[in-house]
């Protein structure tokens, strides 16, 4: 694998597509780049990933409101509420940052107090409910989606930090307290350097950096780096717990520049794994297999030849490339239906964890 300096990286939406000589461009100064592919067709919205992350990293100490991994319903306001409206990222030439806003604390929701005491110990026959006005929280609009019966639609969107190749959070920090680490491109906040300015929170267009009001520093997803370094359970190299604990096993984890790995194939060869909001131009390294819902039905329940999820909505989320990606997936599905082999379908439907998680391929590097 080779790394490619910034001068060789075109600052466009497809900056990490394969170059002519087969090399995958990475951020300047980064040896390899961790990456994740999430298949949205497999997500059942169970939040096991969310809880796996939370119990590992954000249970207490000012982190109560944080979900480094969250699963939101799309269409929907998301977490924090309306995060797609808050700016951040890069402008069209990819050189100047777009101004971003700090979310309102309320937009993240908060931990409600419930009337457990009254019901459990005081004999109250009230229903179990929050004791204060509860009018917003993560997943408040879960499963609402959009569309008209019988053709309503929604899907789940799991989100973590994208550990971007061109991260605007890193650029936003005047102290270089947030940085992209050399060995694998994971974006981390140096807790000793951070002075709580929150420019990274403003600067991230995905709103995946969080301010901790107790420590007065900002914190974020660390791609479970102790686990991928073999410092996790039983001293084994393990994928991030959001991936490993997922019941439908919808995530692939590995390195973007592992050209024999499934991520490289899905992203760069078949081009079916897409970036969320590529127009933010931070070049995320979390990719999504777009959802293909069943077709629409008539009032009498007959199948109609019309897509359930409007294609323009998917274009809003994943860019124009979503069209070609869905075409490719349809084509390969048809091949399998006709009894032919499809490497793409094998990758997407594997139940072998060794194929899904390839984290030790560069262990022999100096």
């Amino acid at each position, binding site marked *: 694998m080779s790394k490619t300096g910034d001068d060789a990286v075109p600052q466009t939406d497809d900056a990490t597509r394969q170059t002519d000589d087969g090399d995958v461009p990475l951020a300047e100064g980064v040896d390899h780049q961790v990456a994740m592919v999430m298949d949205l067709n497999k997500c059942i919205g169970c939040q096991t990933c969310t809880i796996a992350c939370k119990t590992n990293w954000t249970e207490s100490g000012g982190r109560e409101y944080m979900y480094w991994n969250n699963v939101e319903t799309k269409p929907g306001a998301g977490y924090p509420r309306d995060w797609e409206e808050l700016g951040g990222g890069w402008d069209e030439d990819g050189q100047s940052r777009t*101004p971003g806003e*700090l*979310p*309102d*604390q309320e937009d993240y929701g908060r931990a409600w107090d419930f009337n457990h005491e009254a019901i459990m110990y005081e004999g109250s026959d009230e229903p179990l409910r929050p004791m204060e006005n509860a009018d917003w929280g993560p997943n408040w609009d879960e499963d609402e989606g959009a569309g008209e019966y019988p053709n309503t639609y929604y899907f789940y969107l799991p989100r973590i930090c994208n550990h971007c190749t061109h991260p605007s959070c890193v650029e*936003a920090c*005047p*102290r*270089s307290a947030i940085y992209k680490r050399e060995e694998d491109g994971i974006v981390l906040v140096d807790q000793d350097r951070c*002075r*709580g*300015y*929150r*420019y990274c*929170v*403003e600067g991230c267009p995905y709103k995946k950096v969080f*301010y901790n*009001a107790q420590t*007065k520093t900002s914190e974020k997803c660390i791609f479970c780096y102790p686990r991928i370094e073999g410092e996790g359970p039983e001293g084994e190299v393990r994928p991030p717990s959001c991936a490993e604990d997922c019941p439908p096993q919808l995530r692939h984890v590995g390195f973007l520049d592992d050209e024999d790995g499934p991520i490289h194939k899905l992203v760069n060869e078949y081009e079916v794994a897409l970036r969320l909001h590529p127009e933010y131009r931070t070049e995320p390294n979390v990719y999504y297999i777009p959802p293909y819902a069943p077709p629409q039905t008539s009032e009498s329940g007959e199948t109609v030849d019309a897509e359930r999820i409007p294609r323009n909505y998917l274009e809003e989320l994943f860019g124009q490339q979503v069209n070609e990606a869905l075409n490719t997936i349809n084509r390969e599905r048809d091949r399998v239906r006709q009894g032919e082999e499809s490497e793409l379908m094998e990758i997407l439907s594997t139940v072998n964890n060794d194929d899904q998680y390839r984290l030790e391929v560069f262990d022999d590097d100096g």
Partner: protein
Amino acid sequence: MTAEDPEAGGGLGTRQLVVAAALALAVVAATAAFPAVVDARAAYEIPVEREASAGDLAEPTGDAWESVETVHVPMSSSGAAVPGGSDTTVESVQVAAARADDRLYVRLSWSDPTANASTDSLRAFADAAAIQLPVSSDSQPPIAMGSTDDRVNVWYWNAADGTESLLAGGAGSTTEIPESTVETSATHTGDRWSVVFTRSLSSDRANVTDIDPDEDVNAAFAVWEGSNEERSGQKAASEWYYLSLGPSEGATPYETVLWAVAGIAVVFTTLVTVEGIRRTRGE
């Protein structure tokens, strides 16, 4: 020169010349002394009052401050390359300084109708103020946090988190110095913050300004308005001033030189004019 001197031409011209010369000399003498009398404080000077004892100097509202001269220091946005770097609200700070018992006391006071003393939620930023000193006490580092070769100490106070002593060698390099000996006391009354910073003049620690009790030391000031989400380089900052600790009283040397040059020019012009009148009269 005598009355019989034929050159005297009746004596009038000579007497005029003598009077003129005397007047001119008086002007020279007066101009040299003039600024010390009328304008006791030089530009960019923060006089440091010597007090026999500290009394209540450590308190922002202490009576001891009543006899200490206050300097009006204008400030403007630092212009740092951060979002909103030129959007600041505080336009000036009142600075007073005193010394007692080998300690330096500096009081900053500025108008701020909103006391922002919390950083407990995402959009909450605290009011703050700072005094910047050169690490090398006889130096004047670049105003924006110094440079790698010419570093600065910053005495930093924040309404939410208290006091820090910082070291910086250029923008973005600010680092806390552990076990700071800088102390502060702050009060917000009548729409104003008043904050007293105090520290012993001398220091034997590396990277901490050792203030010579007999030498002037440069100082610059900054204020952050929390309600305007000011933090980092988004701050109102002054130019370099100097804390007047040295022995010189009154005018600075360059002012004395300027006044002396002006005085000599007055003498020269007077003499030339008198001589011109004499020649015109044919004396």
